[in-house]
């Protein structure tokens, strides 16, 4: 796209639009055509200037100047947030072998998104694959699917899929029909059921990239922290994890990092048997999991030093019920 544009100097507008239409139709099913066209047009304004940068693994790459921190910490309006960060394809890899339910990801996410104690974009579940295997801790953000059922069913286009793979919600457009909540097979979405004082705090203007301030009667979910990504920082959950469970990166660059080490995404997935949860549903998530093999911590450690209330959240899991019976927790 970008190349073609620079070659022709953006003169052949009709051809450009046609191409944009075709790309958006094939690449991003379900996203509104109009939204995509708007996105392409913004790209068109790029100057074509090229900058040379050093990647974390020591390679020198050429990047269009327009892509670099176009909005450092600036406000991204709902309109701008539909475009996505150019030339990116964000991906998350969660290493289940290292997770011990420390809940730092949950807490940091809640703090930065100004969520209440009971509102979690990131949930940590206790999953058991089969009767023989031990359960494991399973951090669950929004999967930012490439075939997002939530985006398809939205009647107003309030939730949308961006070119960089992120699925966001514009809560100024949302009418609160909750169809997206029922259509998400991963239960990633939550609803603002009543009014809260924090909604009135308009000191920061609203942006779908931060979801602050939230609004009553609209939906919310994990957003992959695009405001951080624009600054070249990791999402809050990945930064906060003491075990480096959460890797985040760009599929186009084939790199993911947890802040401590930077790895090749494809190599990591292939070497460690990476998989996507409920692959058979065909939603094509952008969150990958590394199986819980050679675990660093026993499962019970996730329930130690936790509030009674937190332990109570897992009371329906047979494993936890057994632990309780044995008096271990």
């Amino acid at each position, binding site marked *: 796209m970008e190349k073609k544009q620079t070659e022709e100097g953006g003169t052949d507008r009709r051809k450009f639009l046609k191409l944009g239409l075709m790309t958006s139709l094939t690449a991003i099913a*379900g996203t509104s055509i109009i939204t995509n066209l708007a996105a392409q047009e913004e790209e068109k304004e790029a100057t074509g200037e090229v900058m040379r940068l050093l990647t974390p693994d020591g390679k020198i790459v050429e990047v269009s100047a327009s892509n670099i921190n176009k909005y450092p910490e600036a406000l991204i309006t709902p309109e701008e947030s539909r475009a996505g960060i150019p030339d990116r394809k964000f991906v998350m890899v969660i290493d289940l072998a290292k997770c011990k339910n420390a809940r730092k990801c949950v807490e940091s996410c809640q703090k930065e998104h100004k969520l209440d104690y009971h509102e979690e974009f990131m949930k940590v579940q206790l999953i058991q694959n089969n009767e023989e295997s031990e359960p494991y801790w399973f951090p669950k953000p929004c999967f930012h699917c490439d075939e997002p059922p939530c985006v398809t069913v939205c009647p107003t286009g309030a939730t949308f899929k961006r070119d960089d793979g992120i699925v966001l919600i514009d809560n100024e457009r949302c009418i*609160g029909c909750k169809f997206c909540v029922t*259509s998400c097979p991963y239960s990633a979405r939550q609803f603002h059921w009543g009014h809260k004082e924090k909604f009135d705090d308009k000191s920061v203007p609203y942006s779908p990239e931060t979801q602050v301030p939230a609004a009553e009667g*609209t939906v919310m979910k994990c957003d992959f922290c695009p405001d951080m990504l624009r600054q070249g920082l990791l999402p809050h959950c990945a930064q906060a994890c003491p075990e480096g469970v959460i890797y985040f990166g760009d599929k186009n660059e084939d790199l993911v990092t947890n802040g401590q080490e930077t790895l090749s995404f494809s190599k990591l997935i292939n070497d460690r048997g990476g998989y996507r949860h409920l692959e058979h549903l065909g939603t094509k998530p952008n969150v990958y999991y590394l199986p819980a093999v050679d675990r660093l911590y026993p499962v019970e450690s996730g329930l130690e030093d936790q509030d009674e209330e937190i332990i109570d959240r897992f009371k329906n899991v047979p494993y936890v019920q057994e632990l309780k019976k044995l008096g271990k927790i």
Partner: protein
Amino acid sequence: MQLNNRKRELVKEFSPMLEKTSLLTKIWIGALISIISVGIYAFVIQFKDGHIVTGMRDNVVWGLYIVNFIFFVCLSYSGAFISGILHFFRTPWKNSVTRIVEIITVLSIIIGPVFILLCIGRLDRLYFLFLYPRIQSPITWDIIAIITDLVGCFIYLYLTFIPDFAILRDSPDLKLPVWRKKLYKFLAINYQDTPDQRKRLHNTTSIMSKMVIAMAIVAYTVLAWIFSLTLQPGWNSTIFAPDFIVAGLYSGISVIIIAMYLIRKYFKLEKYILKSHFIMAAMVLLVLSLLFGYFTFSDYFAKWFSHKIADIDLLKTLFGHYFWMFILANYVGFIIPLIILSFKKLRTIKLITFAALIAVIGLWLNRYLIVVPTLETPYLPIQDTRPEFIHYTATWIEWSLSFAGIAAFFLFFTLLIKFIPVISMSGIIDDERRKLKTKETGNQSISYK
């Protein structure tokens, strides 16, 4: 001339229904209005405080409102379907019931969508549906289908009303306030019952009766798709669209039987609504109960037999937490009507009505079991959340609004049959005219011999 006299006779016969309001009716209307007022109060609370006042929470985001929505809309579609078929085949016994069916159709298509509005978090942004429409969303399809159906049903109902409005306009003896007479005159749009007008009206009504059937099927299917196009276990099923049609017809016929019973009893219309009407409706209900049982069984049986984990989780919820409701909805709601309607001896008016009542309650519970338990058993187990988020219990706000919806249905029905006779007068005249004609032609053919 003979027919004109007959018209006058009919108006005279039905005039007490239109002219007087008995004390009992007044009490009835008063009671309905007070139920609706409680509902309006509940709505004000919900509008002010948000959906936090309902029992819906993050997992079960759809509750009683959606159940009522699909129940009422199903009712309406089945009404349209049945009345379309009655017109289409010129069913000889239709005159006594068509008007009841048509009124049920229009009222429930008005009340049903109100419930979906109650379920919307931001009513103030409702116009966004038209400002930023996305044709990919099944909700948009549903809006288009419901609006089309609403308009279609209205036109159809009005077309069948026109000749009766004309008869009422031409009856100066009626002791009615002037505004009502003026209204009849206005609504009759100068229909004089000339052969030409009659033919045109007949053609239009007959086209609309076919259209209404088609629209009902489309709208029905789209409604079912709201559920079956998602990936959720229990919803993502190809049988949903036909199942909604059959289940809707089942509840529709049942409500018609109940309405027939009440109207017959209250207005003493034994002369018009005959036992044979009940028997015929009972036969239709019998067939539909078998179909309903068959569809429900196929759906759950396939889930049980193939035992995918998500399906089994759903069945465990249905047979655990919802055991009695499941038994009532899918066993009692199907077997009791089946037994009553199968035996000739049991097919009395009262028992048929009882069977219909059981069918309606069973079907409402069946809709509840479609919506709520599925949301309680998602693919990923509900964990790391507040315990009160796991199960859904409707609050008084939701219940009072549900009852307000039912009360509004009865109220509008009562008011409408005070405005126009519940038995189609023009239908009776048409029938008699047809009989007269066949008699005449019959005589002619004899004389030609």
